[in-house]
């Protein structure tokens, strides 16, 4: 069944239809929120709340085929609230002061480990570091475009800004990522070398 059909059934009060939607998009939403917040526990809480809000307000969803975008819109608003909360600010400071220092320095950095798990851990660490350097708007646009697979127009709808603004955010965000990677000594060759070992 498509999202639209499941959303329509949910609107009619069928909890199982909503459960199917949650099962279909839960993991994807969780990964998005985790990258937005940098915390597994908080991401789980936010996702839980986002699904609850979606279930309670599903009758207000006018276009059921846009359920996934609507769900991300709810989660994004919760992420923004979280970043404005004392806990979010504390977490951001902790990232800036502690997380980056714990990462290996470029000059002392060991080459990518051949072991796949180690390599994945290295990449995840680098990803956290580069995402941490982005503004919340740039991070949102890039994560929605790159990992969630939304089109520019869908991202514009989710974030409530024009499509041109979304492209601008993605453009400057990608350039910032490239700059951070250079500062950390991650080159295209090292990435391709790591990929070849897989």
């Amino acid at each position, binding site marked *: 069944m498509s999202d639209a059909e499941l959303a329509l059934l949910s609107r009619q009060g069928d909890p199982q239809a909503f459960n199917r939607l949650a099962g279909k998009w*839960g993991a994807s939403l*969780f*990964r998005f929120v985790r990258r937005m917040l940098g915390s597994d526990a908080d991401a789980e809480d936010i996702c839980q709340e986002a699904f609850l809000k979606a*279930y309670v307000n599903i009758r207000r969803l006018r276009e059921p085929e846009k359920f996934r975008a609507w769900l991300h819109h709810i989660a994004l608003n919760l992420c923004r609230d979280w970043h404005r909360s004392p806990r979010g600010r504390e977490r951001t400071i902790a990232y800036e002061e502690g997380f980056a220092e714990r990462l290996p320095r470029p000059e002392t950095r060991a080459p990518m480990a051949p072991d796949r798990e180690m390599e994945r851990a290295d990449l995840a660490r680098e990803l956290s570091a580069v995402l941490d350097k982005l503004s919340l708007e740039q991070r949102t646009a*890039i994560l929605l475009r*790159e990992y969630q697979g939304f089109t520019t127009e869908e991202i514009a709808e989710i974030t409530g800004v024009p499509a041109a603004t979304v492209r601008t955010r993605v*453009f400057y965000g990608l350039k910032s990522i490239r700059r951070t990677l250079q500062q950390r000594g991650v080159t295209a060759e090292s*990435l391709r070398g790591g990929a070849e070992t897989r």
Partner: protein
Amino acid sequence: MNEKPLDAHREKMIAALYGELSAEEERELRELIDSDEELLAEWQELAEAREFLQAAADEAPAPSFVFLTPPEEALPVSATVRAGRHARSGLRARLGHLFGSPAVVFGIAACALLVLIGAGFRVDHTEGDLVLGFGSRPHPVAAPQFTQGVGLEPGAEAYLTRTDFDRFANLQMKITAAMLNQYEEQRRDETLLLVRQVSVALSERQQRNHEELRTQVQDAWLRMIGMGVLGNQPVMRSSRDRGTPERIAPVSQPTDN
């Protein structure tokens, strides 16, 4: 954050990066990039950043968000409540269609305000109170004069302010105090009269007692004379009896020869 808006070429670069251009547009962009070193360098930067993001994509396990039992507040609402909600949302939709944008609503509100002002709507600030009303401002009413707690003067009933009330209360207090004083004086006069009456009564009673005592003394005296106890000693009489002296025969004294 101060991000300069992108020019058309860079916007197309982003679109091309994510496959949002048609084949023709992509070919044109490719030719442009190949002919411009700056664009080529930027294109490579963007592509490398994307390459990293793709390489760092993970499929970490995620928790399940399936509701085993629907939360209580999320259960389907009753038909009545739903009908009410639909009615409200329907009304909102109709109003939205009727009025359109917020600018139109604002315009309508401004027109309504102008009509109200034209009709004489006013807000008066009278002695600390805000009074809403229509028409021209009323003429100020002379401060009401209160006498003996009668109340407001005729014509002043429209404005009973706090000051009026204070004046009214003060006047009532003065009247009450005056009545109390008057009552006190009346009570005092009554007391004085009573004291005077008692005093007169006592005085009369004393006079009566005095007369009775004098009569008793006189009777006793006469009895003593009659018995010859006093002899020829002068008789002490009261001043009342002094005009008719009574000679008392002297008592003969016994001799020793």
